[in-house]
């Protein structure tokens, strides 16, 4: 496997390295804030150490990116396909407008994870967050699945304020039995049964626990709630047409 120390490398040169590897496994060591790694690429097999910069894997269209550490802001912006495993935490705006592929975060996600993620046909994006998520999780969610496990948390809530505000499709699963603070009245919340747990979220959680060496049973343990849009509460009544 090819390994390169990229600490002092410019982002343009890193991009060239990745293109050269052409899908062969490539490890980029000691990343130091270089942005756009794997941006728009189709066929990557990357392992990163250090701290990769913003917009990691933006528009990613296939392949796998693994980060052994934290990632910064705007990870997987508008991601289309492929997989991303972050064995640490992610910054703000994770998976913005993501349309396909899967993201697994071992630690926490910052503010605005999964904003306006959307699904079309068979293309169903998924984000699994092992720790907690910041405010505005899944805001404007238009499709896909977000799962937050809240592992190893103490007093802090599993998500911040305004969870799922304005979502109109898709689902947010939280491993808790507490209603997120200030949940919008336009959303529905319910506890899921074992059947849904098994058929819908178990495969993703299994993949998560395997990747990050977490105990699967522990990850599945306890109550999960799901947040969905309330179909009865649309925004139509807000408008008065001027004839």
């Amino acid at each position, binding site marked *: 496997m090819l390994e390169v120390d990229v600490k002092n490398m410019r982002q343009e040169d890193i991009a060239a390295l990745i293109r050269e590897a052409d899908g062969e496994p490539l490890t980029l060591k000691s990343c130091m804030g270089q942005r756009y790694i794997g941006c728009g690429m189709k066929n990557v097999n990357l392992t990163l150490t250090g701290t990769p910069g913003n917009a990691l894997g933006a528009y990613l269209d296939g392949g796998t990116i693994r980060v052994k550490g934290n990632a910064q802001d705007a990870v997987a912006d508008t991601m289309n396909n492929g997989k991303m495993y972050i064995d640490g935490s992610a910054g703000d705006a994770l998976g913005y407008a993501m349309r396909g592929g899967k993201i697994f975060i071992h630690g926490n996600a910052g503010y605005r994870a999964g904003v306006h993620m959307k699904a079309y046909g068979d293309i169903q994006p998924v984000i699994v967050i092992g720790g907690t998520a910041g405010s505005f999780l899944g*805001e404007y969610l238009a499709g896909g699945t977000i799962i937050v496990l809240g592992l190893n948390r103490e007093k802090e809530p599993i998500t911040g304020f305004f969870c799922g505000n304005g979502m109109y499709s898709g689902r947010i699963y939280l491993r808790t039995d507490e209603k997120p603070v200030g949940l919008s009245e336009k959303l529905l919340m319910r506890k899921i049964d074992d059947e849904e747990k098994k058929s819908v979220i178990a495969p993703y959680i299994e993949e998560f626990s395997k990747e990050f060496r977490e105990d699967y049973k522990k990850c599945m343990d306890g109550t999960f709630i799901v947040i969905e849009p309330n179909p009865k509460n649309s925004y139509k009544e807000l408008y008065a047409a001027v004839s």
Partner: protein
Amino acid sequence: MRCNLIPSRFKVIRDNEACVSCRICVRECSYGVHSYDEEKKTLKADSTKCVDCQRCVSYCPTGALSIVLNKNTFRPNAEWSCDSLKEIYRQSESGGVLLSSMGSPVKSIPRYFDRILLNASQVTNPSIDPLREPMETKVFIGSRPERIERDERGRIKDNLPPHLELDTPILFSAMSYGAISLNVHKALAMAAKELGTYWNTGEGGLHEDLYKYGDNTIVQVASGRFGVHSRYLSAGAAVEIKIGQGAKPGIGGHLTGAKIIGDVSRTRMVPSGMDAISPAPHHDIYSIEDLRQLVSSIKEATGYLKPVIVKVAAVHNIAPIASGIARSGADIISIDGFRGGTGASPVRIRDNVGIPIEVALASVDQRLREEHIRDRVSIIASGGIHNSADVAKAIALGADAVSIGTAALIALGCHLCASCHTGKCSWGIATQEEELTKRLDPEKGAERLVNLVHAWTREIQEIMGGMGINSIEALRGNRLALRGVDLNEKELQVLGIRYAGE
């Protein structure tokens, strides 16, 4: 032979093919325009009596009626308008002061709100979707001390005087019981409660049935002191001292005895059938220090639990006047602009005295800032607020909140026929005739008012969201959010805004 120099202004057109002679128009018209000719079995209309209140049009089940302008034309004269001639005919016939109703319709005085444009965010900071993200329109109005104080443990003491808490920066303007019906007061009170804002009694007292809405009521004290007693003063959330109003600065009020009947008489505490006169000034206020005395006496009488509002008309030296009011102990200054007005007022005063709210507000806000006292008091602007954009512009010019009178009445059905002074309001608003007042269902009225203010609030939130502002405090006095068009240097300077493109 009778000669009528003033031709009727409107013509009632009836589509005889559509008309089914149901006579609803006869019943609905309170001005006696429509009648049924029993012999000929047809409906007639006397257009000379028509005020174009649109009541008959709105209620005609077959859409057979329309009211149009009379096409009859006086010989065109660039110097003398048709209206000028009519006014002279009218005054030479009667010897009277011209009387009309509602705010000034004068076209030659600009509506500055229409020449101000609002900003929006692009790239350098994000706009906000108010339907999905937090967007706060809540505002507290009242006065503030100069500094914070701490207790012996170092905790901040609550040294704030009482404030009014508004869920949206829109209040209902003062309109008195007597000038308008009890049902209108009821509708306003219910709507204010539902909306988390305030309605204002005007100067005619508070009807017994409405004391229960006290938490959302501003009780007014005007020069006539109608219905003012200590229970009244304590009934509301705030007390407003009315010095003047936009439609008739410097002019008192005159409610004819015909309207002082029954509960109006009882509420105002004046004998039935007797005219109710509001003196032009408060005869206990001949100077600014006297205002301080009145403010203080009201605070004393209400145990310092209620903010005191002083309402003035926007006149030429409004900035120093407002400064004087701010230093009088008043908590809130309410400024009513040139175009304000519901109910009757003398035409010449209405159309020639005072200044538009936009410039008055801008100069007051700036002056209070120059004197370092803007944060000590709050400002309510009124007089010409037509829509939510006007509200946003007024706040960006420096208002804490606005109040709406005309727009509220329009929501209740008013068609601005400017006939309030006749007491025959066909929509049951500006009348005390039972047959007419019952036309307005207070519950339905309240619902319409709530809808209107909710809709405006949503629009204000859209406007704020576009600017990337999510709390109304950050819009207040934020004049960079505004740009002018079709304004000269002086106007821009007074408004404190830049020209579009600058």
